[in-house]
């Protein structure tokens, strides 16, 4: 091979790298596994409802081929093919949909994620985090892997704006009420320090009485509830009907009569799906929570 030939070969190689090399990028997912980015994904499978919500918010609804049986928002999502649940996604169904991107999260069993990877399916796993900021990060990451970075950026900006607005409305709040979150249908299940709800409470200027426990979910003690004496109780439920049932059962409990929230009838409804899914609608949940906890600040606004 003479010098000139080598020169041309090198030039071609460089040209190739400039033209096509930039299209291929490898990034690591939150479990540390590499994900190779080529052309924008056309067949996406989501392994969690909040991921589905984010994907749809980035105008990628048409590219979604599979979701979990819990993905019911936006409405179009529930019409997509179901691949199972969050803890029991079905490998066969996933494979048959022939996806070019599967977005999972740390709540999917690790064994299943590992098996998906061993079938050589393109998987990207996300850490969910514990606060509102991590939701922005989630949107950003999903924007990157679906190559919708710009859209993700503007979307995050719009969410941030709404967040800043709530913060400025609430800046003069003097009294932060003590609040107890009740996850309906599960006794005194509530959310601890590592839950999104705890973060929402903080940002809505309230104090979660279970916020000192370093867990995501926990079963609260009855005695402790009476002792902490919350001023507001928020019941998370799927519907108003479920809510009124849960509220009635709280009020019927004789020991709870003395609790401030019960005595003053400060028991409110919050949509469970809104407040427990770390997706874009967490901002909606924050707005609602702020209105419930500090109605006087929002009256003047209207």
């Amino acid at each position, binding site marked *: 091979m003479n010098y000139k030939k080598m020169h041309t070969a090198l030039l071609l190689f460089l040209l190739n790298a400039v033209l096509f090399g930039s299209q291929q990028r490898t990034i690591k997912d939150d479990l540390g596994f590499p994900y190779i980015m080529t052309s924008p994904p056309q067949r996406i499978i989501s392994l969690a409802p909040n991921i589905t919500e984010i994907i749809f918010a980035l105008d990628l609804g048409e590219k979604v081929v599979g979701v979990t049986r819990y993905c019911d928002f936006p409405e179009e999502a529930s019409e997509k093919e*179901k691949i*199972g*649940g969050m*803890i*029991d996604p*079905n*490998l*066969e*169904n996933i*494979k*048959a949909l*022939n996806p070019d991107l599967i977005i999972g999260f740390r*709540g999917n*069993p*690790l*064994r*299943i994620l590992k*098996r998906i990877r*061993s*079938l050589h399916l393109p998987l990207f796993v996300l850490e969910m985090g514990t606060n509102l900021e991590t939701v922005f990060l989630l949107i950003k990451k999903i924007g990157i892997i679906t190559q919708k970075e710009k859209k993700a950026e503007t979307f995050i900006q719009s969410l941030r704006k709404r967040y800043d607005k709530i913060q400025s409305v609430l800046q003069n709040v003097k009294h932060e009420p003590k609040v107890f979150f009740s996850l309906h249908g599960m006794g005194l299940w509530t959310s601890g320090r590592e839950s999104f709800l705890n973060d929402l409470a903080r940002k809505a200027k309230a104090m979660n009485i279970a916020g000192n426990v370093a*867990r995501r979910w926990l079963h609260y003690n009855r005695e402790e509830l009476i002792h902490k004496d919350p001023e507001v109780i928020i019941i998370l439920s799927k519907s108003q009907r479920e809510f009124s049932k849960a509220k009635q059962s709280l009020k019927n409990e004789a020991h709870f009569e003395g609790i401030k929230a019960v005595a003053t009838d400060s028991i409110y409804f919050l949509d469970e799906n809104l407040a427990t899914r770390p997706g874009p609608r967490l901002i909606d949940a924050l707005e609602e929570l702020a209105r419930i906890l500090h109605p006087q600040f929002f009256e003047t606004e209207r």
Partner: protein
Amino acid sequence: MKAKTKRLRLLFVLLVLFFTGLLISLLEGPVETDFRDLWDFITNHDKTLGTIFIDLRLSRALLAFLVGASLSLSGAILQGYFQNPMAGPFIVGVSSGASFGAVLSIYLGLSIQFLGFSLQSIFAFASGFAIVSFVYLLSQRKGVYKVETLLLTGIAAGAMASALTSFLIFLKAESFEQAVFWLLGSFALSEWNQIAAVFPYFFLCFILAQWLAKDMNLLVLGDDVAQSLGCPVNHIRKIFLAVSTLLAASSVSVSGIIGFVGLIVPHWIRILIGPDHRHLFFFSSLTGGVFLLYSDLLARTLLFPTELPIGIITAVIGTPFFIYLLSQRK
């Protein structure tokens, strides 16, 4: 001669059942497929169908078969060993012990390979072995096994190991799914390298058991008699205990605890072809495999689209049988 035709007939039935089960396993699943798809895959090598048929369904069916064979062989050995029809890897506590070991190694984050063995299966074996030795020592009184003590110690030790397993899973706050897998078993995530992990153990243990089957026939006559007939009782006992534990531990480390298989299958075989261990071991393995193959089919189709843990199926079939055996003892 008559016994031989009986065995041949049984072998024929089992093989037919095995291949039918395998075919149903290949065709049945969440993604609808029929003979034409299977044929299409064989002739055109479609990649997606290939993954579904070979990597997901075939590996699952064969792993279920292999685990069933291992557990039944383990049970057949334990029943001969304890000279007791109620022994079995689940009843004696080996399965629960092995499951605890496997979960412990995961909890400690030990996923290293050591001399080709994963630390997980070493832990599973060690803790299964510890439990079975414990039960063995406690249930022995001057060389005689008391059935009640054996059963009670086994069940108690097994319950303790299961409780510790649950505790570890709870500590790690890993999902509920983990607990269900380790305590009730599942083949939902089968893969070929699991088959590669279990098969050598099974093969080795099967050969050993078959080779020593004659000695097991002597052991059943009582240790003294066996000794006087030239059987090195102590060595043989040690080998059999290790073999049965190894079989149970290797199955548990890929599939979680699947109870009662090792208890009921050797019984059926004993009723069908008699107590000669030379045939008992072989037929127990084959029947156990076929039994678990069908149990897994039920587990994944009964509540479609969700799956049942296979341990529920085997327990539902196995428990009445166990109770029946207990009532027969009086």
